[in-house]
């Protein structure tokens, strides 16, 4: 945040004077000033606890004090006139002693350790100058644990900095990792072997300063950090748009790491984002164009070269006058725009399901017309009151859920000033606040992962949740519609929530689209708008379904209903599907009937599973990880991603396929895109078509951007084996692959300078080989990056808008005879299409099931282990059932993983126990 620096003080470090921030400790100040002061237990997002004693400096009372006292920089405030020495011989010697102690039992197995070469412990050891071993005893050893498919455990390397448990328990709310034992026999792990339960467990890999917790997926195709090309990208596994680094070597995606963004992900990613990348390496990923000679008897696809496939397509399209385009919320803004340009506005179907399309349009309308702004993740983290409506956000927008978990500490933190405690004094803060929590209310269909920090929770059907929200809005501002038929218990809860939100300084209403009930979104808007009427600067945060749902919605495609109303003549119309598996979004029979109206059906995708049996032409698209483009995240922020892999033969980014298809079609509209050779040209065209996108080109520096005439190298300068990698194919040293799309180069050659933030390919600095090098990329540690471009926020509220509240809220949910309302239960692992193809994720996908409150199961006479036949409009399934005491009564939760839900939910369903086999 661009906080006014009214806390500026002067501190003296080794005889030189500097300006520092009185709100920060000396370690933070020293690091921000560029000093190399070693540390372990302090973490910019977790504060200080004084455990490792590594950041010792000598503090002097005043100018005349020559003795000084050793203090821990992380535990000492940067007060006016503070005098310290980092270079003091005793301080240096003490710091090197700390490393010596930590090394007594460390196995020194760097050559076989996955952390080697990017290990904070290595860096700090070198920094302190501890080189020779004096300890003569044997080392302590431990048995390691199996922690699941994401994280490898090697306890012998542990230096007991406690970062892992502090992150896992204090930040992420996990309960199954802890510190056992005591003295020099501490064990950081689980009580028993088993998969780490928390959704953010992968961050252990990054917070651990050495190789105790390492990325198990990386180890399956291991390469050293210095041997990987790394690229700034945007996570495409939900709508939050976390910034990531994608690392590649030899055409194989190796891993995902956190790329700090001060407003979004900060220091942490979810496990879906971190471990979902392996879909890129999926053996069945589409890599060659293919043609199906005959549609009728589901003949197999035949691989062809791009030229041949396009030539065949030309002959098929010659007599077609129209192409209907199907967009995709998981494709880039540019590819969707290209499709829309080619097929024309009226023939552009958004490709979203009926529910998604409706919700996305609604969210867009609320964020454009209303007075309440959409909030960034960072703002949510600082909210001092929160209302969550809908589903368990950890499954649909995990990083948002993590931010909401942090928000409950905001209100209690206000007491700290009175206690003379700084926010960074984490141990003291936790002692003083004693687990006090600010207001967080949750209305949901079933228990959520945030219930443990919630003030109170409400369980009900989606429309009862919406009614709760509307009633809160009415309680805050009587202009908002009234809700009738509330029980006295509900009324009391509503008054409590309204009071908590209206008396807060920074309340937020967070809503997931995962229940499928539009009224929940409207209710959230009513609450935020009611707060604005009361003069409370409330924020809204929505979690749309996919990584580019809002971006696609901005392009204004037709809904499926609109599309089916006007389209379809098999002799005239072709269908072009962009990166979209329509079977996940539309009910099968309806979809198949609709597809009958088109010929040929052309699919551009990288997911083999997405290929319809009816598809006649298939063109292999580059996934987001391997292409360049833009995405619009949940708050309406457009961000650029860059390709992590050099162009693969026969594969290209979707918009280029669309252009190629346009070229072989007879469509007039092709001329508008005929000259496009770069994203910049597309951006210019988009800016002209859509005023809201006029700044899209500013999201990151353009392809022509250079620093002192040089591109930005994706490979570190130590990258090895460049000439050996392609040796099986050619013994000649090839040119490095070109990257005309971006200022980045697939090379170790280029500028040594730090580029603007969207282009930072990896965090590395001299002497700082681990991700802690991030300190060197920030203006102040834990704050903005140097030369920070945050992406462009497209949607800003109308502060003065007196938007009309949504009227006519739904009536109370009434149970129907013999039927239950079937609601979707999205899952972190399995509900998102691409990550579900990653092998590590696959191991953790829960089984598809119907989830019922035990009472409902009893009412239906279901026995343990029995299957259930679920019948709803367009849906007939036999599924196992599970009971969950947190499930609201009168509902049935549908956990369909993978495969999503192809019918609009919620819907009334009949459930019957299946006959025993």
């Amino acid at each position: 945040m661009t906080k006014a620096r009214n806390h500026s003080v002067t501190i003296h470090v080794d005889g030189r004077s500097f300006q520092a921030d009185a709100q920060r400790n000396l370690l933070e100040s020293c690091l921000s000033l560029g000093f190399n002061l070693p540390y372990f237990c302090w973490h910019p997002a977790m504060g200080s606890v004084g455990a490792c004693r590594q950041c010792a400096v000598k503090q002097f009372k005043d100018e005349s004090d020559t003795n000084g006292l050793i203090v821990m920089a992380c535990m000492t405030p940067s007060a006016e006139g503070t005098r310290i020495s980092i270079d003091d011989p005793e301080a240096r010697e003490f710091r090197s002693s700390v490393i010596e102690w930590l090394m007594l039992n460390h196995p020194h197995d760097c050559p076989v350790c996955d952390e080697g070469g990017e290990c904070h412990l290595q860096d700090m050891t070198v920094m302190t100058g501890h080189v020779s071993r004096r300890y003569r005893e044997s080392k302590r050893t431990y048995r390691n644990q199996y922690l699941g498919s994401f994280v490898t455990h090697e306890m012998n390397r542990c230096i007991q900095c406690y970062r892992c448990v502090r992150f896992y328990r204090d930040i992420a709310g996990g309960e199954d990792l802890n510190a056992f034992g005591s003295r020099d026999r501490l064990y950081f792990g689980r009580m028993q072997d088993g998969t780490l339960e928390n959704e953010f467990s992968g961050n252990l890999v990054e917070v651990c300063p050495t190789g105790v917790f390492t990325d198990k997926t990386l180890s399956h195709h291991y390469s050293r950090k210095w041997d990987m090309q790394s690229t700034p990208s945007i996570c495409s596994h939900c709508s939050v748009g976390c910034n990531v680094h994608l690392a590649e070597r030899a055409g194989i995606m190796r891993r995902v790491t956190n790329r700090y963004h001060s407003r979004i992900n900060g220091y942490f990613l979810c496990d879906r984002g971190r471990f979902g990348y392996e879909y890129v390496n999926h053996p069945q990923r589409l890599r060659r164009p293919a043609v199906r000679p005959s549609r009728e008897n589901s003949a197999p696809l035949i691989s062809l070269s791009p030229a041949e496939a396009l030539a065949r397509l030309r002959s098929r399209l010659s007599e077609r006058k129209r192409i209907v385009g199907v967009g995709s919320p998981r494709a880039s803004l540019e590819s969707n725009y290209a499709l829309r340009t080619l097929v024309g506005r009226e023939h552009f179907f958004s490709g979203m399901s009926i529910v998604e399309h409706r919700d996305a349009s609604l969210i867009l309308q609320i964020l454009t017309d209303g007075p309440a702004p959409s909030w960034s993740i960072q703002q949510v983290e600082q909210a001092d009151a929160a209302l969550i409506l809908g589903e368990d956000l950890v499954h649909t927008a995990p990083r948002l859920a993590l931010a909401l978990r942090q928000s409950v500490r905001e209100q209690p933190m206000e007491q700290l000033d009175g206690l003379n405690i700084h926010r960074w004094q984490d141990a003291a803060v936790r002692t003083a606040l004693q687990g006090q929590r600010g207001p967080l209310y949750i209305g949901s269909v079933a228990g959520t992962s945030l219930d443990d920090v919630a003030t109170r929770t409400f369980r009900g059907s989606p429309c009862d949740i919406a009614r709760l929200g509307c009633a809160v809005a009415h309680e805050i501002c009587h202009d908002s519609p009234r809700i009738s038929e509330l029980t006295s218990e509900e009324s009391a809860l509503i008054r409590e929530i309204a009071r908590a939100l209206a008396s807060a300084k920074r309340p937020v209403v967070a809503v997931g689209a995962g229940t499928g009930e539009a009224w929940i979104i409207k209710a959230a808007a009513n609450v935020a708008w009611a707060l604005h009427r009361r003069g409370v600067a409330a924020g809204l945060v929505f979690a749309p379904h996919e990584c580019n749902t809002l971006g696609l919605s901005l392009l204004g495609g037709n809904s499926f209903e609109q599309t089916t109303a006007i389209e379809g003549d098999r002799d005239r119309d072709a269908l072009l599907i962009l990166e979209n598996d329509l079977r996940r979004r539309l009910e099968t029979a309806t979809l198949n009937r609709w597809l009958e109206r088109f010929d040929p059906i052309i699919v551009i995708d990288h997911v083999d599973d997405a290929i319809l049996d009816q598809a006649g032409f298939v063109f292999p698209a580059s996934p987001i990880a391997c292409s360049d483009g833009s995405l619009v995240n949940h708050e309406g922020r457009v961000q650029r991603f860059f390709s992590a892999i050099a162009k693969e033969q026969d594969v290209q980014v979707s918009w280029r396929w669309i252009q190629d298809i346009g070229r072989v079609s007879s469509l007039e509209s092709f001329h508008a895109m005929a000259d496009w050779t770069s994203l910049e040209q597309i951006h210019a065209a988009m800016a002209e078509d859509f005023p809201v996108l006029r700044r899209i080109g500013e999201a990151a520096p353009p392809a022509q951007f250079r620093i002192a005439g040089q591109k930005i190298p994706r490979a570190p300068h130590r990258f090895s084996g460049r000439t050996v990698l392609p040796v099986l194919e050619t013994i000649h040293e090839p040119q490095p692959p070109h990257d005309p799309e971006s200022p980045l180069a697939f090379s170790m050659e280029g500028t040594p300078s730090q580029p603007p933030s969207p282009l930072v390919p990896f965090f590395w600095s001299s002497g700082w080989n681990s991700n802690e090098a991030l300190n060197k990329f920030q203006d102040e540690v834990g704050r903005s990056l140097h030369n920070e471009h945050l992406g462009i926020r497209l949607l800003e509220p109308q502060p003065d808008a007196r938007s009309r509240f949504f009227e006519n809220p739904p009536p109370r949910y009434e149970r129907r005879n013999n039927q239950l309302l079937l609601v979707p239960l999205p899952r972190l692992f399995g509900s998102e299409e691409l990550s579900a193809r990653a092998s590590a994720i696959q191991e953790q996908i829960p089984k598809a099931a119907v989830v019922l409150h035990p009472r409902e199961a009893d009412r239906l006479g279901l026995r343990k282990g029995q299957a259930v036949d679920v019948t709803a409009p367009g849906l007939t399934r036999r599924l196992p059932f599970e009971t969950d005491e947190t499930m609201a009564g009168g509902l049935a939760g549908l956990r369909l993983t993978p495969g999503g839900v192809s019918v609009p939910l919620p819907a009334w369903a009949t459930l019957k126990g299946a006959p025993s086999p």
Partner: protein
Amino acid sequence: MSHSKDIRSMLSEHEKDMINEELSHYPTKRAGAVEALMIVQRQRGWISDDLLLAVADHVDMAPAELDRSATFYNLIFRQPVGRHLVLVCNSVTCWLMGADRLRERLRSRFGIDAGETSADSRITVLPNVCLGACDRAPAVLIDETLHGPLTADELDRLLDSSLSETLP
């Protein structure tokens, strides 16, 4: 947890009553968690994983969190111990007054070192920090009763009588 019912039934009503009595002393249940473990341990000898889960469930703590406490304290046993427990003080006064000879006698008689349990599970010998009986050094605590000062022969005689008693 599907097995939560089974876990809950592991604690006897008597144990639950005693635990609830302790818990009633505090505004939070976790404050009584270590006492709850000690209550159960007094009945069962040691805290197995299942018992730990049962106590964790009873005091509303995550099992790993309770296990952190259980593994921190010297006198919560997460491994089986013998029917009789001999804690030999190993702190300074007892050391200089000859505690090593007591340990040597235990070793020669039962074939076990401090920290071990005899093969017949009759006895476990544990070293213990200062028992607060330095005026009676060297001291040992046998099944919660303090004895000292002891010579090795006196310890032998004491064990003859202590170990011959049948367990209550």
